[in-house]
């Protein structure tokens, strides 16, 4: 069972190696198409945080936890210390409402579309984005 903690530096160049590491860690626990959604979701969530986290120290690390149960894989992304809370569920636009020719604005909608459940709230004095990816289809 996966139960690992990672730390991401606050810069764009650090995101992709972290996404690939998380995908490799989860690859034996999720069906291939769910793993694809997991990769997209992880990339969008970390990019959003690095680009848009406000009022945190420029060198603030972000804590990421990856774990699993019998039924799902859980990705927890903690906002860097000092960052303003940002509940993306309130701001995400459904992908069906986005102009297909738009050059931006898909990131939050992708997170909502690719995760099976999205949560956000205060945990241990920090704000945490929680993303769930179900294994159920894998069994079916």
């Amino acid at each position, binding site marked *: 069972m996966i139960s690992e903690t990672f730390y991401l530096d606050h810069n*764009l*160049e650090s*995101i*992709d190696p972290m996404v690939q590491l998380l995908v490799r860690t989860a690859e034996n626990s999720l069906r*291939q*198409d769910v793993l*694809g*959604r997991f*990769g*997209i979701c992880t*990339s*969008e969530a970390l*990019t959003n945080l690095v*680009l848009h986290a406000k009022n945190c120290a420029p060198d603030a690390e972000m804590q990421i936890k990856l774990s699993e149960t019998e039924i799902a894989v859980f990705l927890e992304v903690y906002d860097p210390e000092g960052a303003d809370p940002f509940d993306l569920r309130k701001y995400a636009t459904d*992908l*069906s409402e*986005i102009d*297909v*020719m*738009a*050059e*931006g604005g*898909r*990131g939050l909608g*992708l997170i909502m*579309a*690719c995760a099976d459940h999205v949560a956000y709230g205060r945990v241990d004095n920090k704000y945490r984005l929680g993303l769930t990816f179900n294994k159920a289809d894998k069994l079916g």
Partner: protein
Amino acid sequence: MIHSTQTDDGIIIVRPGVQRLTAVNSKAFKDEIVALIDAGNSEFVIDFTSTTFLDSSGLGALAGVLKKIGHRGDLAVCGLGPDVMQMFTICRMDRVFSIYPDEAAALRALSEKS
């Protein structure tokens, strides 16, 4: 970053030159293709055979290229692996772009159109 070649018909074949097209490199990707459009080229095939992943920034850059070409030319994409195709499908971009399995099929389609 991109690698481009031109066919005898004047079609530009672009290979992104990166395995992963993301927020780190998508602006350079778009800028370099836009420079080719500004230089007078109007028909493009973008071959993603060597690109295994693109995020929303990469997809946005591709939409920007398509907008820049507009009605003056044509753009086809090919060689989409499963993860890239999944991204196109989720974002409904499979309805916007002409998608072909490989360069030969994409070139044949563009040549027949012109």
